[in-house]
């Protein structure tokens, strides 16, 4: 039985602390690796919003991440200035997800079939993009390049100034602001009635329907929002890697983000972020050695987490601390009650 944690509140203290650490980081340490960790965290956040709060698991969420990356690369090669490509990289995944989501949710497809369809979508993109080698496959000036992908496109620049490119520390700040901004957007969505209805749908779909909410519309909307964030993450990834290859659509990438989210914790926003940062770091460290294969560790973690802590690490910790706090309050309440009972016994 899965016990979902409550919707959670904005804890401004923790948020400001986290934001301060992220923003001060470049003053002391290198930013190359932390940039990609923040991008992965944003990607995990996008899936965590939809899976943890609306109960919708997209098995192939990497499709929208990859779409964001490809759309940015293709658009920026054609346009040159990066503002419009950035917006397109958010918009197009959102539109694609809205179409696929509407098809699934208005068709009342169950969650397992939703898993299959979303996974198949990313497989289609993987197969297609891997096969686009040669001059025949080009969009405008951008050659899709098949398995080798699209290399060497212009990176993000300051809006309106095509010559001022953002890389290195400025790129880190772009990723940081994107992550913090999306976190705030997620919190805002969840605090509004829209978010409450989503949680309601997660808990009891039929009841929400009977209360007059259009469940498919809500599901489609959150799927689209989540895909937009994934697209933004994909666009930032493309800028960090400076190349886009079909491997962004692979089964491996699809699995990775799910592992980050489920290990970090469902039904929290900070869980997926921390999961992505910690496991992303682990992945980078593991890829530096060749003794143990990376997938072995990832697979092992996923199996153990599903079996032992299906809610994820952060909710399990919250539950544990919450229970200790509850026991403490119960205990003190108990003593107080005893005193109260004890007091009137003594006749005056």
């Amino acid at each position, binding site marked *: 039985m899965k016990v979902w944690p409550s919707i959670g509140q904005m804890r401004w203290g923790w948020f400001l602390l986290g934001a301060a650490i992220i923003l001060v980081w470049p003053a002391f340490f290198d930013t190359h690796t932390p940039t990609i960790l923040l991008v992965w965290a944003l990607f995990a956040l996008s899936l965590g919003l939809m899976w943890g709060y609306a109960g919708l698991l997209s098995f192939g969420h990497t499709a929208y991440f990859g779409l964001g990356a490809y759309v940015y690369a293709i658009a920026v090669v054609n346009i040159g200035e990066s503002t419009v490509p950035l917006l397109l990289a958010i918009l197009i995944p959102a539109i694609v997800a809205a179409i696929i989501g509407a098809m699934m949710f208005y068709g009342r497809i169950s969650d397992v079939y939703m898993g299959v369809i979303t996974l198949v979508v990313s497989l289609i993109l993987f197969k297609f993009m891997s096969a686009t080698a040669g001059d025949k496959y080009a969009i405008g000036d951008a050659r899709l390049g098949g398995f080798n992908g699209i290399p060497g496109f212009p990176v993000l620049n300051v809006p309106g100034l095509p010559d001022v490119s953002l890389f290195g520390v400025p790129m880190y700040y772009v990723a940081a602001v994107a992550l913090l901004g999306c976190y705030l957007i997620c919190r805002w969505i969840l605090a509004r009635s829209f978010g409450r209805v989503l949680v309601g749908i997660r808990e009891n779909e039929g009841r929400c329907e009977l209360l007059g909410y259009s469940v498919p519309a809500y599901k489609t909307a959150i799927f689209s929002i989540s895909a937009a964030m994934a697209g933004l993450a994909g666009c930032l990834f493309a800028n960090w890697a400076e190349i886009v290859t079909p491997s962004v659509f692979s089964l491996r990438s699809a*699995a990775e983000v799910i592992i980050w989210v489920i290990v970090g914790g469902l039904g929290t926003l900070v869980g997926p972020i921390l999961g992505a940062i910690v496991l992303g770091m682990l992945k980078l460290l593991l890829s530096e050695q060749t003794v*143990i294969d990376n997938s*072995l560790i990832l697979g092992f973690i996923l199996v153990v987490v599903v*079996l032992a802590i299906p809610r994820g690490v952060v909710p399990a910790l919250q539950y544990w601390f919450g229970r200790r706090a509850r026991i403490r309050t119960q205990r003190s309440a108990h003593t107080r009650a005893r005193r109260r009972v004890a007091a009137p016994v003594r006749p005056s």
Partner: protein
Amino acid sequence: MDYAAVVILEILYMISFIALVSAGLAVVFGMMRVINLAHGEFVMLGGYTTLACQRAGIDLWFSMLVIAPIVVGLVGLIVERLVIRFLYGRMIDTMLATWGLSLLLIGIVTLIFGSSAVNVPTPIPGYQLGAYQMGGYNLFIIGVTIALYIGMWLVLRYTRLGLIARGAMQSADVASSLGYNPRTVYMVTFTIGAALSGFAGGVLAPLTGLLPASGGGYIAQSFIAVITGGSGAVISGTLTSSVLFGTISQIVSFASGPVLGDIVMLALAIVLLRLMPTGISGRFLRNSQ
């Protein structure tokens, strides 16, 4: 004329390929409603078992037809005991855990056999069909698949084991009240499903070549064949969807290249799932096996 024969043989081969690869997954999904995302890796393990046996000097036929199913069946048994049995009734969690398992198996195989592609020799030589050179082994695959499905049908229809399996499938409660522990039935079913996947992997190994990650190539096809086939009728549902997908993907491949064939097949699967959320067998084949 020759060309028509070639096209028909290729279509038959594609249908057999999908049906063969899907058999194990179909049994597990049909009987237990468990979607095993490590299915592709079971197929891959069957291939590597064949390779290891062949390298050890064991007869190729014996290793692919006998040893591969037994070894992968045992792996399936271990997996069921260690992981799957804790997750019955939790479909999404099962999918996640088996996905983890698939990564784990890829990692283990990479550790043992390395990550480069290897080949198992083809035991049947090719033959000449008019102007075309054909693989003789493809004919063997078609034959094996037909034999396998006839065998599965006979077992389900005429043996006591098949009766219990069908009973447990229709109503686990009734089967259990008649004295058949559903847990045991599930354990045996999962083992048989894994053995079937291992069999498919062993038989296909000479044709496809082996990579630790090659399971991913099987999972898409078998997945959509089984899910589109539906859980109502294991054999006829899977066969119907194999015929459908095999024919269409091969015709598109002949018309415009293999990649588009795969893509059309996957896109068709999405459309079919949208139109028939319970699968083909949930809609048309309710009273068959």
